[in-house]
């Protein structure tokens, strides 16, 4: 591997802002999508659960 140490790795040859900027945004958006999906799933199950208690769809 060609990194002197973790500090070089994060400095990314002076382009840290750009490289990590883009990776951070990508990761952030993907995580956000997963979280939104999970919330949507849970709200649906909750709603169906409540509907089942009231008896009827």
């Amino acid at each position, binding site marked *: *591997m060609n990194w002197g140490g973790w500090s070089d790795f994060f400095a990314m040859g002076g382009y840290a802002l*750009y*490289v990590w900027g883009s990776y951070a945004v990508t990761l952030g958006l993907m995580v956000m999508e997963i979280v939104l999906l999970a919330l949507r799933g849970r709200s649906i199950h909750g709603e169906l659960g409540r509907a089942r208690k009231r008896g009827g769809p």
Partner: protein
Amino acid sequence: MLAPWFGVLAAAFCAAGLYIGFFIAPTDHQQGEAYRIIFIHVPAAWMSMFLYLVMAFWAGVGLMFNTRLSGMMASALAPTGALFTFIALWTGSLWGKPTWGTWWVWDARLTSELILLFLYFGFMALQAAIDEPRRADRAGAVLALTGVVNIPIIYFSVRWWNTLHQGASVSLTSAPTMAATMFAGMVVMAFGFWFYSIATALARARCIILERERATDWVADYARVPK
């Protein structure tokens, strides 16, 4: 359901891709480390195009055979496709800054990505505007098919426009000389993104199915099973 399994696969492939990208691929002599953004920019661009085609395919199937499920698959894919297009644009401009000094390069591929993003938003806006789900799916299908016919036309007209006004000096197509490991990194990342989109699409499809079939009986039984 399958979604969690594809999620695990996606995580594995992405990790492998990143590992190759950061630790094995050599530093690029021209652009130094900045080129490492390519490991998400190119796969994201591939995925944005690929997902639109898959979406149009499912939409077409839904239109032809009048099956509701394929219509739902199409609307489940749209947000993920839009996400990848946005990522491709974001990473593209971040990559443009160090190498060409400007945030936005009117390059043929970046511009057609931007138009693809508008197509995605158009699709989602149309689906959101129509209340009746069946009509929303089929209207969306017609728009997706029209869009698919237009994508190659848009790409070539933008490329022709690019050469007309600016000359082909600045363009993403002249990617840095492809070392084997760089290409491998990109392909592995592409697979990672691909599994990721399957996982999100399936999960969102499940939510759409539950939301739309709320009234039918089998949904009520399904809810009784503790999730």
